[in-house]
C-alpha cells in the first residue's frame, strides 16, 4: 500500500474537468475595464432606477478609495497573481435582450449546455419538483414553476426583474445585511453586479419546493458578479439550492458574488451550495477565483442554515455568516471543503451573537489533497447583550498525501459570562486501521478511501436535500480521483 508516485502522477494526468466545455452564444459584451462609465452603462442596460445607480456609484467610489488605500485583503492563506481589474469584462449578456417567458423561448444551445452540465432542465425541474432560475452568464434565462409559486405569493425571479417589478422590496433590503462598503470584493460586486436571484416568501408561507439556481461563468475573461437576495417574511420557510460549474478557460476568472439573507421573526432559510467551478489544471493554471460574501441576518426566533460542499475553484475565499440579532435565533454552518492539485481554500464562517438565547452550530470538514492548502477560518463572537447564548464548533481536517496543508484558525470572542462555547478540532490522515478493514473486505484503496471520506462527511451531507447529497458524494469522488494510490 506504499504510495506509488509514478502511478499517482499518471492518474492525475488522466483526470479531466468533467464539465469543461464552452458554448458559443452570441454575447453582448461591454469592453474590458472598470470606470464610472462602465457602472453607468451596466445600470442603464438594466434600465435601473436612479437610486440604484446612485448606490452602485457610491459603491464604486468606495471601492476606488479602498483599492488605493489597502488593495485586496491579504489576511487569507491564499496566494495568487495580482488581479488586473482593468482587464476584465464587467458585463456580458446572452444575445436575446428580452428574458424568455418559458422554456420554449430559451436558446436551444443554452439548453444543451445545461444538458452537458447534467442539468436536464425540463426533466429535472419537473421530476424533482424544483423551480430553476438558471443564470447563464449574467442574465437569467429560464424560470419554471413561477406560476405555481405566484399563487402562494412567493417571488422567485432574477434580480434584474425584481428591480423592475418589486423595487420597494429591493430598495428596502439591498445592502441591509452586506452593506456596499463591507469589504473589497463586496464593494466591487455592489458597483458592477450583473444579475442573480431574488426570492421573497410572504408571511406565514412555507415554500413547498426546493428553489434552485445554477450559475455558470461562460464568456472568456468575464468576471461574474451575481447578487442574490432572499427575504423570508415572518414565520415563513424556504430552502434554496445553488449549484455552480464553469467551463475551462485558460486565464483565471474572477467571481465575486454577494448573497444576502433576511430571515424576519420566526422565519427559516436553508441555503445549500454545491460549488465545483473549474479548479484549474493539474499544474495550477487557470481556474476560478471565488471571492464570495454571504451573510444572513436573523430576527427573533428565526433560523438561518448554510450548507456548502466546495470542491471546485482555484481559490475559494468564502465565509457564509449569520448575524444573530433577534432573540432566540439560530445560525448553522455545515461545510465540506476539498482541495486537490493546486487548489487553495480559505473558508469558514462568522457567527455574531447579539440577541439573547441565540444558538449557533458549526461543523466544518476540510479535505486536503495534492499540493494545495485548505484553511478553516471561523469567528464566533458573543456580544455583551447575548445572554445565555451557545455555540458548538467542530472542525476536522483530513490530509491525503504529504504535499498539502491543513490550517485551522478559529477566533472565539466572548464578552458575556452566561455564554457557553465549545470548540473541537482534529487533523489527521485516513486511518490505516479503517483502510485495512475495508480493503480486507475486498474494496480497493481508492474505493476504501472514498467510502471513509464520504462517511466522514456525512454530518454535512445529511443537511443537504437528498438528491444533492448523492451528487455531493459523486463530486467528492470525481474531485479526489488520482489523489490516492
Amino acid at each position: 500500500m506504499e504510495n506509488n508516485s509514478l502511478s499517482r502522477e499518471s492518474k492525475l494526468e488522466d483526470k479531466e474537468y468533467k464539465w469543461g466545455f464552452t458554448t458559443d452564444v452570441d454575447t453582448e459584451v461591454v469592453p474590458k475595464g472598470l470606470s464610472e462609465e462602465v457602472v453607468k452603462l451596466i445600470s442603464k442596460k438594466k434600465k435601473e432606477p436612479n437610486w440604484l445607480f446612485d448606490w452602485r456609484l457610491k459603491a464604486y467610489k468606495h471601492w476606488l478609495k479602498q483599492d488605493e488605500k489597502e488593495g485586496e485583503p491579504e489576511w487569507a492563506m491564499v496566494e495568487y497573481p495580482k488581479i488586473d481589474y482593468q482587464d476584465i469584462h464587467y458585463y456580458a449578456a446572452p444575445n436575446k435582450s428580452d428574458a424568455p417567458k418559458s422554456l420554449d423561448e430559451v436558446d436551444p444551445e443554452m439548453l444543451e449546455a445545461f444538458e452537458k452540465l447534467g442539468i436536464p432542465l425540463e426533466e429535472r425541474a419537473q421530476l424533482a419538483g424544483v423551480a430553476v432560475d438558471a443564470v447563464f452568464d449574467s442574465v437569467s434565462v429560464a424560470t419554471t414553476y413561477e406560476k405555481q409559486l405566484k399563487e402562494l405569493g412567493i417571488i422567485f425571479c432574477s434580480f434584474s426583474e425584481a428591480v423592475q417589478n418589486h423595487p420597494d422590496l429591493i430598495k428596502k433590503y439591498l445592502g441591509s445585511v452586506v452593506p456596499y462598503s463591507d469589504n473589497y470584493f463586496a464593494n466591487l460586486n455592489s458597483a458592477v453586479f450583473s444579475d442573480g436571484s431574488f426570492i421573497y416568501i410572504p408571511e406565514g408561507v412555507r415554500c413547498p419546493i426546493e428553489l434552485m439556481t445554477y450559475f455558470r461563468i461562460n464568456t472568456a475573461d468575464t468576471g461574474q458578479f451575481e447578487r442574490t437576495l432572499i427575504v423570508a417574511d415572518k414565520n415563513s420557510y424556504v430552502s434554496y439550492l445553488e449549484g455552480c460549474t464553469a467551463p475551462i478557460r485558460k486565464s483565471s476568472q474572477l467571481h465575486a458574488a454577494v448573497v444576502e439573507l433576511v430571515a424576519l421573526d420566526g422565519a427559516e432559510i436553508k441555503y445549500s451550495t454545491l460549488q465545483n467551478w473549474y479548479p484549474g489544471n493539474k499544474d495550477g493554471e487557470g481556474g476560478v477565483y471565488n471571492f464570495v460574501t454571504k451573510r444572513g441576518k436573523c430576527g427573533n426566533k428565526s433560523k438561518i442554515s448554510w450548507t456548502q460542499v466546495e470542491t471546485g475553484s482555484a481559490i475559494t475565499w468564502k465565509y457564509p455568516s449569520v448575524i444573530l440579532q433577534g432573540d432566540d435565533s439560530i445560525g448553522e454552518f455545515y461545510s465540506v471543503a476539498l482541495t486537490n492539485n493546486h487548489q487553495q481554500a480559505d473558508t469558514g464562517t462568522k457567527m455574531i451573537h447579539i440577541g439573547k438565547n441565540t444558538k449557533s452550530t458549526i461543523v466544518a470538514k476540510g479535505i486536503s489533497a495534492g499540493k494545495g492548502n485548505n484553511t478553516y477560518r471561523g469567528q464566533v463572537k458573543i456580544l455583551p447583550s447575548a445572554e445565555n447564548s451557545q455555540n458548538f464548533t467542530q472542525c476536522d481536517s483530513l490530509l491525503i498525501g504529504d504535499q498539502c496543508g491543513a490550517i485551522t484558525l478559529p477566533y472565539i470572542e466572548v464578552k458575556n459570562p452566561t455564554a457557553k462555547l465549545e470548540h473541537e478540532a482534529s487533523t489527521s490522515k485516513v486511518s490505516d486501521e479503517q483502510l485495512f478493514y475495508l480493503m480486507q473486505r475486498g474494496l480497493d484503496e481508492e474505493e476504501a478511501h472514498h467510502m471513509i471520506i464520504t462517511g466522514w462527511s456525512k454530518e454535512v451531507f445529511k443537511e443537504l436535500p437528498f438528491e444533492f447529497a448523492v451528487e455531493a458524494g459523486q463530486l467528492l469522488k470525481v474531485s479526489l480521483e488520482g489523489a490516492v494510490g
Partner: protein
Amino acid sequence: MDKILEIKNLKASVTETEEKILNGLNLSIGKGETHAIMGPNGGGKSTLVNVIAGKDSYSVDSGEIEFFSEDLIEMEVDERAKKGIFMAFQYPSEIPGVRPWQFIKASVDSKRKFLGEKELSVREFSKIYDENIKIVGMNQDLMKRSLNEGFSGGEKKRNEVFQMLMLEPQLALLDETDSGLDVDALKSVGDVVNRMRNNERSFLIVTHYQRLLDHIKPDFVHVLIKGKIVESGGYELVKKIEENGYESFV
C-alpha cells in the same frame, strides 16, 4: 487433499520497530479443514492472521505463503480478500457515516465483479442480507447505525461473523472472535462456523481459550509459542492445554 494455504518457514516482524514476531512458522491447511491456533499472549497468533490478510504494519522477512498455490506475499489486501480470504477482526474499526448495509453491499459487489459474477440487485442482496442477520442474531436497529459505531464488543464480533456469512470466503481467519463474548453469543458464533463448514471451505481459528473450540471441534489444533508452532494434533490437544497450560510446551 487439496491445499488451500501453505506456509513455509515464515519469518515476520513489526514494520515500524522491526521486532521479530514469527520465527520460521510452518502451516498447511487443506480444503474443508478447520484449524485452531492456540497459544499464550504475544506468541504471534494475531500477527499470523494479519500477515495472511496482508496488513502492512507487519513485514514478511522470509518464507512463503501460498494460497491455492499462488504467492500471497506481494498481493494487495483487497485482492486477497476478493480471492476468498476473510478475516474476522479482533478489534473491528468504527467507520463514521458508513452504514453496514452500504459497506457489505460494496464488499459483495466488489468480490462478485472480481469473480466475473453478475452484481446482485438490491432486492436479491437485501433478501440474503436479512436472512443472514436472522441467522447471526444481529440486532436490526444496530445495523441502522454507522459501521461498528456504538456497538458493544460482542456486537462487533457478531457483525464480523455476519460479514463472513455474507462474503462466503474460501478461507476464514477468526482472530480471537471469542474474546468478550457471553455464552449465548459464543454459541451463535460456533453455530455459524459449523453451518458454514463444508468440503470446500477452510477455517483458521485463533484463540486463547477452549470454550469456542468446544462448539466447533476443530480438525487440527496447533500450539503457537514464540513465533513457532511447537505442537500440532487433533482436538485432544485442547484438553491437554486445558489441563496443563502452555508451560508444558515451552
